[in-house]
């Protein structure tokens, strides 16, 4: 099913242009901080909210919303996964999944219900009442209910946010697999970076009601187009510097008196101001040993200023004349005896130093 979804949605502070070629990217993630307008966009796509005049939504050759056109939600043939699942409490699991199958002949419905439950890894829940389902089970049932009528577009609103952390982690990978298997173009709204990385093929970054960047997930995460996007996608260290020149196929940047090397950015000229973005995972910490070869071009002597546990890893704040944030695993942290005051060397590959034009009037 290769349809293009194009939308311009204006509502309150939002003014979003979006164009998704669903054949290119089965799963598109709308990513941004809470209150950025992602859910508004999703609800307008579903027809649950009406955008303001000047808006336009088209899916393939169907016009969903325009000046004098409004296709009611029930005719858009979409599947919508609500944040809190919104299962019908008075119906069983099978009743919920079969709810949208009124267009099917009655005798075909049971098979379709089983098929949809199986597609959501929830076949075993068929006879259960809705009450008493765990968060993860409710999520699968809600997905089965959305898949059962074979929608042409699937909209997921923060699909994992209502779940506890272990369930979320377990379901995250599953969800991606289930969505790909279902083969239905999907738009997922999330403010969770890991969720965005795990679920999406393409990512559209929404900040303050505007679409800031749209492209393959890796591209957006590794090459954010602006400081705002960089901050939202979670580059952990963002520094201001200026370009001192291009040597040895590297771009040299001066950051507060320290020289950092980055993969060449020929578009930057000597003296240009630039943002230097370094992800916490890309900073390696090692014991200070000046005799080591300088393979990572950036080796900075640093002092640990703080160590915070962050899930399975440690977030380490370093003072190297510039402030850096690094992520290391707990065993590494123990091996290096990381604690405030500890002398350490921070190594950053040049390829991990990402440069962004510094916009003069932003942030």
């Amino acid at each position: 099913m290769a349809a293009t979804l194009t939308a311009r949605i204006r509502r309150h502070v939002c003014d979003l242009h979006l164009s998704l070629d669903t054949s290119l990217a089965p799963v598109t993630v709308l990513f941004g901080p809470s209150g950025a307008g992602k859910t508004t966009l999703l609800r307008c796509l579903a027809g649950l909210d009406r955008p303001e005049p000047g808006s336009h939504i088209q899916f393939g050759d169907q016009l969903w919303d325009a000046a004098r056109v409004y296709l009611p939600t029930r005719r858009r043939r979409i599947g919508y996964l609500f944040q809190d699942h919104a299962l019908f409490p008075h119906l069983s699991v099978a009743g919920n999944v079969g709810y949208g199958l009124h267009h099917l002949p009655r005798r075909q419905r049971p098979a379709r219900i089983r098929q949809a439950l199986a597609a959501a890894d929830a076949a075993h829940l068929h006879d259960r009442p809705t009450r008493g389902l765990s968060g993860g089970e409710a999520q699968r049932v809600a997905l089965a209910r959305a898949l059962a009528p074979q929608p042409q577009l699937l909209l997921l609103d923060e699909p994992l946010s209502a779940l506890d952390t272990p369930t979320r982690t377990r379901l995250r990978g599953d969800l991606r697999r289930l969505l790909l298997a279902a083969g239905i173009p999907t738009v997922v709204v999330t403010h969770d970076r890991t969720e965005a990385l795990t679920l999406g093929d393409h990512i559209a970054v929404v900040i303050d009601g505007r679409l800031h960047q749209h492209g393959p997930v890796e591209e957006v995460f590794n090459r954010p187009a602006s400081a705002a996007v960089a901050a939202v996608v979670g580059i952990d260290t963002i520094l201001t510097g200026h370009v001192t020149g291009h040597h040895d196929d590297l771009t040299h940047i001066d950051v507060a008196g320290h020289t950092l090397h980055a993969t060449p950015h020929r578009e930057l000229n000597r003296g240009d101001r630039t943002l230097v973005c370094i992800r916490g995972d890309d900073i390696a910490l090692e014991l200070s040993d000046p005799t080591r070869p300088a393979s990572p071009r950036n080796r900075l002597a640093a002092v640990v200023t703080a160590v915070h546990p962050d899930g399975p890893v440690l977030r380490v704040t370093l003072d190297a004349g510039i402030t850096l944030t690094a992520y290391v695993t707990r065993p590494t942290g123990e091996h290096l005896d990381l604690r405030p005051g500890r002398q350490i060397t921070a190594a950053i590959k040049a390829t991990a130093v990402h440069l962004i034009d510094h916009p003069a009037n932003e942030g």
Partner: protein
Amino acid sequence: MDWQAIWVSARLAGLTTLILLPLAVPIAAWLALSRRRIAVVVEAVIALPLVLPPTVLGFYVLTALGTASPFGRWWQQTTGATLAFTFTGLLVASVLSSLPFAVQPLVAAFAGLDRRLLEASAVLGRTRAGTLLRVALPLSKAGLATAAVLTFAHTVGEFGVVLMVGGNIPGATRTVSITIYDSVQAFDYATAARTSAAMLGFALLVLTTLYSLRRARGTRWPRP
């Protein structure tokens, strides 16, 4: 006790409830869920019987049902019968005067529904009517029961409107509440007392049932 009057009362209350509920459900759904501002005005109009003296309502209904009004004339031409001072006329008046008792509990129930469930229904391809029948009503059983009980009980207890519109015709429009008035007028205090006690018992029973329904899942103080 006047068994004939009890039968009239029961029939009137039962029919009023049967007619009113299917009428009240879509009205209440519209009032509770509509985005239109006019809904507030309509809600006020529907609540009028709560504050108007029954005689006022009775007067208007009587006028409307009489052959002097277009509706009364139309009814007489199509059915060949008049409405004033008949059981049918009384039923019409009763439906109008009990309207708020049927509509208000349903409005409260519908307004308390989780909006996402209605949205989920729409996304799954259902119309508003389908959503009302399949989601809103099954989740508003308590409201529906309250509406039915209140309508029935209020119709049994109605006096002013019945007297104005129905007159006092035995077997047709004389209800239990009117027999008490008649007994007192005839200085038959013993009968009036018996009927009053029966009505009091009935009202108490109905209300106790109603409130026990509601109390079943309410919020309580935490244990000390």
